[in-house]
């Protein structure tokens, strides 16, 4: 079976973004960009399924600017066999991405699509679920364990009170949680090899998808600042402050 892995290029998770003074967005100039961490986990899971002989091919797909090619090369260095860029300079929102991935899936006919649970820039946590709805596939979100055998997937997913295990007929949508696996590092030889792997570029119009944004960002602000705190000398002072100043005990 083929596995499709949608990956997003986002501001690196170590960067603390700055809101622009004019309130139009966050400052992305000279900021380090990386693969969304949940998507690294998704690629790793797909590559492991191929290494286990369950998947035959892993295809990474990214929607966005031409610079996403770099992120797709990283995905291929981790082990994806080939990649597809759906190139657009429109602000692609989750519904548009879900439709684009659906159009790619219609061509590629994967039996599994592994999304990240959440992009750490927009924090939307929607795209995998939306893709599942549009295709009518079942969804295994927030997965911490995936087992595939006999045309079925058994997925353990993280829920508010613990975990649950569900069984699905393929094809299925999976979205990754942090505990699914620990992604490998791309080695230098694999980075070199990835440069020669196939990377096709499409446009949303080639796929017949209208990507017009539905949400308009009117302004972007800093979160409310907390007042400066104090350091206390010892436990006694801490308890005194909690009692007399904060009045929480």
């Amino acid at each position, binding site marked *: 079976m083929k596995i499709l892995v949608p990956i997003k290029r986002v*501001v690196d998770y170590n960067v603390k973004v700055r*809101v622009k003074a004019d309130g139009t967005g*966050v400052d992305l100039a000279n900021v380090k960009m990386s693969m969304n961490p*949940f998507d690294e986990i998704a690629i790793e899971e797909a590559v492991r399924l191929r290494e286990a002989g369950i998947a035959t091919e892993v295809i990474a797909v990214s929607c966005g600017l031409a610079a996403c090619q770099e992120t797709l090369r990283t995905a291929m260095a981790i082990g994806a066999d080939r990649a597809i860029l759906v190139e657009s300079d429109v602000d692609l929102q*989750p*519904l548009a991405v879900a439709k684009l991935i659906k159009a790619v899936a219609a061509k590629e006919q994967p039996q599994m699509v592994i999304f990240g649970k959440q992009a*750490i*820039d927009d*924090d*939307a*946590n*929607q795209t995998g*679920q*939306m*893709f*599942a*709805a549009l295709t009518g596939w*079942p*969804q295994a*979100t927030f997965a*911490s364990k995936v087992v595939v055998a006999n045309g079925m997937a058994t997925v353990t997913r*993280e*829920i*508010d*009170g*613990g*975990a*649950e*295990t*569900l*069984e*699905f*007929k393929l094809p299925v949508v999976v979205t990754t*949680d*942090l505990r699914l696996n620990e992604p490998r590092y791309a080695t230098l030889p694999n980075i070199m090899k990835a440069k020669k792997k196939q990377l096709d570029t499409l446009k949303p119009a080639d796929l017949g998808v209208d990507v017009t944004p*539905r*949400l308009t*960002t*009117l*302004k*972007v*602000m*800093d*979160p409310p600042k*907390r*007042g400066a*705190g*104090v*350091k*206390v000398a*010892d*436990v*006694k002072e*801490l*308890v005194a*402050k*909690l009692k007399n100043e*904060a009045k*929480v*005990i």
Partner: protein
Amino acid sequence: MTQLLVIAEHDNASLKAATLNTVAAAQKIGGEIHVLVAGSGCASVAAAAAKIAGVAKIKLADAAHYADQTAENVAALVVSQAAGYSHILAAATGPGKNMLPRVAALLDVAQISEITAVESQDTFVRPTYAGNAMATVKSADAVKVITVRTTGFDPAAGEGGSAAIEPIAAAADLGLTKLIGREITKSARPELGAAKVIVSGGRGLGSGEKYHQVLEPLADKFNAALGASRAAVDAGFVPNDYQVGQTGKIVAPQLYFAIGISGAIQHLAGMKDSKVIVAINKDEDAPIFQVADYGLVADLFQAVPELVAELG
């Protein structure tokens, strides 16, 4: 008049508190509020929802195939009921995040995730970049599908209402998934989302054994919930549902203890709206001290037992 539909969160026996925060967000938007209860043998949930102040009607879909509340079946039901509603809301908790984007996609509209404030009927504030940038977004869609960050809205009153309960027909069972098992973490402590005091531990605790040995006595003093950083969960000290942060639970208790937690932005995203934050860390430069109201630079293995003793 504007009509809004709130999806109730429950376990077939009781209504979850997050529903009250979601109703509060709906009240801010304004209009006639209906609550949908989809479950199996969940009459007591509908009865509880009917008492929420400000709710006009409860729609109750009681059928075996809603017992496990799979996203596929519940979303199909919500879509079958969607006509006439301008807004459809659910809490931004596990079930809501899982299910509601399906509703949005089936209605061909955007979902507005985790709103923390309402500006008008079509304009909302939501955190992005782990809460480091608050975006005000305006929706151009006919129906606004919204998840609500519970910490952004004080709960509606759970008593005082007397909404009519209207049984509705179930949608077809899609039969797409089968639940094999559920492992619910057992704890006598309050839920993270509902606790007034939270004691959270990080990698600094060293092991699961020490985590419990050191933090339980402190939590006992306050009837507090226990939380954790991602590092503590990944290291297996505690189960996954203890994780507080950007990609875990978002909490805002009266008092939050961060013990042996460095304060990475992903952790801060989940707790920086707490009323009072106490940090205990042996590294005086730990970023957690930048958000802590009271910071104590100390070895937690000494300071926490001392604190417990001092509290008496």
